């Protein structure tokens, strides 16, 4: 029998095998993100895997898994096991400020809330889980909330800001790969999605489900598993968490009036129309019977030159004030729990001139949230503003 190898035949066999394996994978379409060494070999992460930019993952020991909710949750400590019976579970939704863009994983707001040592009225210990994800986007938060309901939260703390409610500022990297899930949520809860690519995207085709088409996602999932070793070795997941990375926050702001593509206050009504307020209603409906407490998250408020024009690098006063007023009225009209903490923290609680707090700021905010949480933990309704307001004093 001849043992010689015909190169073309060999190539043909390799191609056929490659195509067959791809088709088999696409047909099977396994939830590969659920396969995880976290909570098995590595400890679960205290917040979702995320890296600022492709080149930063080495610095963060972390990758962004925007395409994979299974991968995000299976890496998180919330997936460590069934919910303990003695645990009162709070989940935090929000953007990079809630994720902790400038703090270590054990210094975030969720960690600080857990560290408050609260107990529920029936004696359960309060544990807060950080399910925030960088980049403000309420639609992305809805996707995370829907998935998180399988983990039986007792209370949802949803930190939002103007950028997150604005329909032109959505997290496309997250929404596009999860478009079918988002469309299902929208359909179920009668949510009108903005005219964006994720609103009319069909479910993944056979080709899109093949490993070769999903290679970036699979690579990120694999890297996330490997980085579990670095997480175990260091408990470090954020390259910007060291004090040297914290900018000296400039007191001055620019004199520009624009917010995104709105040039000036004349566009106030257009701005208001663009807010995705209805997403908050959907969140409230989805989470039932758990309560959803919405917090307008604290922002850095500049104290120097041009402070009468802008609050900070992100927001001119006219736009942010319009947003606050609209949101407060809307929440009041729907009787949803809402707290406006926009000015609750002094500038030196921030690590940059946007919304990112330093460890001191996280602890400060947790202490301000304590009375609110206590009220809701014991299922009492409590509406109003905080007794102390930093900016109310400085604005006078």
């Amino acid at each position: 029998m001849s043992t010689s190898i015909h190169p073309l035949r060999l190539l043909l066999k390799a191609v056929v095998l490659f195509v067959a394996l791809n088709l088999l994978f696409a047909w099977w379409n396994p939830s590969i993100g659920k396969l995880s060494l976290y909570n098995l070999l590595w400890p679960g992460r205290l917040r979702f895997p995320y890296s600022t930019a492709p080149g930063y993952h080495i610095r963060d020991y972390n990758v962004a898994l925007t395409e994979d909710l299974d991968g995000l949750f299976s890496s998180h400590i919330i997936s460590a096991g069934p919910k303990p019976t003695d645990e009162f579970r709070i989940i935090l939704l929000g953007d990079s400020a809630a994720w902790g863009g400038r703090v270590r994983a054990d210094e975030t707001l969720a960690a600080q809330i857990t560290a408050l040592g609260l107990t529920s009225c029936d004696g359960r210990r309060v544990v807060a889980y950080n399910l925030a994800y960088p980049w403000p986007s309420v639609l992305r938060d809805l996707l995370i909330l829907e998935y998180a309901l399988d983990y039986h939260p007792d209370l949802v703390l949803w930190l939002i800001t103007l950028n997150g409610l604005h329909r032109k500022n959505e997290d496309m990297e997250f929404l596009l790969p999860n478009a079918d899930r988002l469309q299902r949520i929208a359909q179920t809860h009668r949510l009108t999605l903005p005219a964006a690519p994720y609103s009319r995207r069909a479910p993944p085709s056979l080709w899109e489900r093949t490993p070769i088409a999903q290679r970036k996602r699979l690579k990120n999932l694999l890297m996330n598993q490997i980085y579990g070793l670095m997480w175990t070795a260091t408990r470090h997941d954020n390259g910007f968490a060291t004090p040297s990375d914290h900018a000296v926050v400039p007191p001055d702001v620019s004199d520009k009036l624009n917010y995104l593509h709105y040039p000036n206050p004349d566009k106030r009504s257009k701005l208001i129309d663009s807010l995705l307020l209805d997403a908050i209603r959907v969140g409230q409906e989805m989470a039932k019977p758990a309560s959803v407490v919405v917090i307008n998250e604290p922002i850095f408020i500049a104290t120097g030159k041009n402070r009468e024009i802008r609050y900070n690098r992100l927001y001119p006063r006219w736009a942010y004030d319009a947003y606050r007023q609209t949101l407060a009225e809307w929440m009041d009209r729907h009787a949803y729990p809402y707290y406006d903490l926009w000015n609750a923290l002094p500038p030196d609680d921030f690590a940059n001139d946007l919304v990112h707090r330093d460890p001191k700021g996280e602890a400060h905010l947790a202490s301000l949230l304590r009375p609110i949480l206590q009220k809701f933990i014991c299922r009492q309704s409590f509406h109003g503003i905080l007794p102390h307001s930093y900016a109310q004093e400085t604005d006078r």
Partner: protein
Amino acid sequence: MGVVEILILTAIAAVLGRVRRGRPLALMLVSALVIYWLQPKTAPWDFWLPTLSLFLTLLGWAITTPPETRRLPENALSLAVLLGTLGAILLSARFFPEETPFTSPVSLRRFLPILSGFLVLLIGISLPNRSPRLLPPGLILLLLAIFLVLKSPSLTERSMALIGALLTSNPDGTPAPLPWLGFSYLAFRLLHTLRDRQAGLLPPVTLAEYVNYAIFFPSFTAGPIDRLERFVKELRSPLPFQPDDWLSVLQRLTTGLFKKFVIADLLALISINDRFVFQALAPGWLWLSLASYALRLYFDFSGYTDIAIGLGRLLGIRLPENFNAPFLKPNLTQFWNAWHITLTQWFRAYVFNPLTRSLRAQRALPDALILLIGQVATMVLIGLWHGLTWNFALWGVWHGLGLFVQNRWSEFARVHFSSPDIHPWVQQGLRIGGTLLTFIYFSLSMAFFALSTPELAFTVFLRLLGLA
């Protein structure tokens, strides 16, 4: 080189390997194009650095080749092909600046006088019946000087800023420095020919053969470093390529790709870095990250070597092996005989052997001291080849001392412990122990290799022992 580039080069090699007529010329032409293509695209370096590689190669050939071989008519044809290739690259950059994969547009006003000057120099060297004796050492010194500049970041920055300012008229300032792709390996090959020429050992070769040896595209960026006489022999009579060879070539290429782009790239994620020294929560993690770095280095480098050997085989040339399971060797001497083999052979031939011969000739030093000096000096030079820093020098000292101690221990053990009565299990245990110890010793040296300062390396050692 990324996966796409490697796949393209594989296709080119598969086609080129089937060419029979004009094979050295075709191969030379492709290699010349490839060195422009692979050089990172930043003007003006993406033109000037590959061009300097070609100029140095041409000088190397003119200096090392006997006059009667230099005057063969085929060399004129080879030179014309090279200049034609250069012209085509320049034209493509001029007329298709966006589309050309080779280089950014170049100022001909600056290039043509330099080219003319170079050609006059080349002809000046080539015409006399006897090459001046000072030329080989002159080129050796030039290559070493370039080495010195390229391996020192501050010298690189300053000299490239100076040269960049002369080569461009960019009003925005001088261009940023850029790595010179493949220079190290090119220099090793040229130095080998120059030294062997001085020793009268170099066979005469044509221009096309010499250029192919120097810039052979499969091994241009990461070796291995072949010897001229062996390479030219297979260039002249390519190994026959049987259908069965496809399997071994594909195996070699896929193994290389897997080693480099899967194993090494994943190990890179968990390898030691400056921040990790202080972030690691326990010494065990530092041990692990050092071992990961060592393994990563191996898989990265041996992966590239597998790819180079696979491509070379497609072209009918068997490039030398560069790795032979180094982490399975029971002592450091055997490890260094199996790690980056062609580089260590080069240093043995051109540094260690001449140095120890010279020291022995003086008859003033004991053999052990000569060995110590030879090994430390050779390993320090290998270290400094990676960069002119204290870290790489210390890395060299670490390995030089390790080799010396291991050599002395082997001598001692041979006299005192060698007995045919030792049970095979004990021998096997000693072998496994030696292998582990060698791996640990090499991994520890990664503290010098991977970290940016000696202080960090010493901090790692303290932390490994739980002392910091």
